């Protein structure tokens, strides 16, 4: 009789602790969002959302607050990075799980984990000292550009995609794979027709997380994107993302300029939320 009772007591303690942890985790996001709303508040009346999205230029100290080019640049770098990183990341995961020699697969996973742990400022420095001069000399232009930012973002999110895809593939029941093999399917067909579709939800989930990271990445992008405020119309021309704009100017801004920068932060957070929407809408566990 003692045991179950002890357990229930422990359960209650554990439950209380877990609820507190969950409330803390959940309220952090809410508090951040409320803080952004409060700080951005004055910008809703002056200069107003319309001016902030339709002004032709960004000269915040002289009253032009056009942030649309920066929103477009944020989307261009993040989705561009995704376009490059998804095939590489998913490919690496499939290779590690089904095609790599026995000794190579764990090595590849460790490498991806290491890559995921490199601080973004290191990617930024490498981009600034190696990639940017390379682009400038081989393709022309100032080097710091949409292309440089997209390439470095792709590098940074490959491990996220590869590791989540690897975990999703690992979760495919071996009986399913064995069954497919027993039906006489080749290894390629098993991967394409059985493993990947079964793991699709997990892989999509990893891609969305990578997209969120790409949208919010600041330091590396700030160092290599050139930060000129213009629409992303040319791969070799510089752009400025919303996060880079915050990092560049927030320490130096006051009054209207400051609240507009927080509106930029709000815009960025909303974009990330929208990009994660498919995850929220999907039933728990399917995506």
């Amino acid at each position, binding site marked *: 009789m003692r045991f179950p009772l002890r357990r229930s007591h422990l359960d*209650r303690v*554990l439950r*209380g602790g877990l609820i*507190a942890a969950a409330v*803390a985790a959940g309220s952090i996001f809410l508090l951040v969002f409320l803080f952004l709303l409060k700080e951005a508040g004055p910008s809703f009346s002056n200069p107003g959302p319309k001016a902030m999205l339709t002004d032709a230029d960004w000269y915040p*100290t002289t009253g032009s607050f056009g942030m649309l080019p920066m929103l477009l640049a944020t989307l261009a770098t993040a989705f561009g990075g995704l376009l490059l990183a998804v095939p590489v990341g998913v490919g690496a995961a499939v290779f590690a799980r089904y095609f790599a020699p026995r000794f190579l697969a764990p090595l590849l996973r460790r490498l991806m984990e290491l890559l995921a742990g490199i601080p973004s400022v290191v990617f930024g420095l490498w981009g600034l000292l190696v990639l940017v*001069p390379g682009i400038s000399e081989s393709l022309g232009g100032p080097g710091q550009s949409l292309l440089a930012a997209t390439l470095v973002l792709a590098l940074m999110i490959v491990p996220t995609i590869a590791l989540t895809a690897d975990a999703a593939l690992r979760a495919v029941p071996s009986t399913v794979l064995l069954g497919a093999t027993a039906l006489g399917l080749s290894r390629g067909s098993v991967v394409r027709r059985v493993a990947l579709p079964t793991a699709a939800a997990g892989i999509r989930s990893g891609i969305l997380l990578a997209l969120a990271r790409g949208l919010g990445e600041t330091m590396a992008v*700030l160092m290599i994107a050139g930060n000129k405020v213009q629409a992303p119309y040319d791969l070799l021309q*510089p752009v400025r993302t919303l996060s880079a704009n915050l990092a560049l100017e927030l320490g130096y801004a006051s009054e209207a*300029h400051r609240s507009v920068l927080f509106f930029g932060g709000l815009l960025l957070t909303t974009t990330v939320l929208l990009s994660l929407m498919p995850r929220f809408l999907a039933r728990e566990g399917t995506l």
Partner: protein
Amino acid sequence: MSESPSPSSPSPSLAPWLLFSLLGLLSCLSCTKADGTGSSRLVVTGSSTLAPLLADLAASYERLHPEVRIDVQSGGSGRGIADARSGVADFGMVSRDLYTEEGDLKAWTLARDGVGLLVHEENPIPALTSNQVRAIYRGEITDWSQLGGAAGRITVVHKAEGRATLQVFLDYFGLKNPEIHADIIAGENEHAIKTIAGDRRALGYVSIGTAEEDILHGISVRLVDLDGVPASSEEVAAGRFPMTRALNLVAPESPHGVAADFLLYVMSSEANDQIRAFSFTPLTP
């Protein structure tokens, strides 16, 4: 033998909140500023140009006065102004002259720094005139060959809005920010210097003190003469180099107690060697 839930069971759920409030309390303790007599803790925040120098001066002051703790935080001249006004900091660091709307603050100039034009080490151009610089930043001159250099499109490196170096640059050349045709917008001095070190065709402007430090450490950039005056800390010290700025500490009113003593120390000739070590120009002989 039944056990009733002990009265302590809700405590684990409270623990994180207690921890949070404790953290909050601690951060409040650290933000209370020294008002002189009783306390011995000073907070100095602001300009990223000045922060390394002030950290160094604070360390040597702390060696002389072990009971004093000085906390130096970088975050831009704008933050220095805001923190001095709000009282979060005892002194704000501001690496430019104060504007008229900042007249509510008192400023003490401890050194001057030049803003110099910077190119890649391999760029052969020896000197630029004010008119040429104006034309380049307005987009009227776009190629080095128009200035007698090797052919190549000029990569114009500019600074982000609100930076002190940007203000000094615009004021000196009488330019307005919307007229500028920039290719790259840099944040900190180091960002601009690394950008120029990686681009043979780049032109930018940075703190002469910071640039000289980096050149000593082998970064492949070169300061260009402006209107016939070499851009060097010697010329700034001699008062000949034209594009300079004041490096200030600011506060709403004259300090007293420890803060006043620290101010006296950094303004005295004792601080000169350290100021020169950062390639800035001290004002006291």
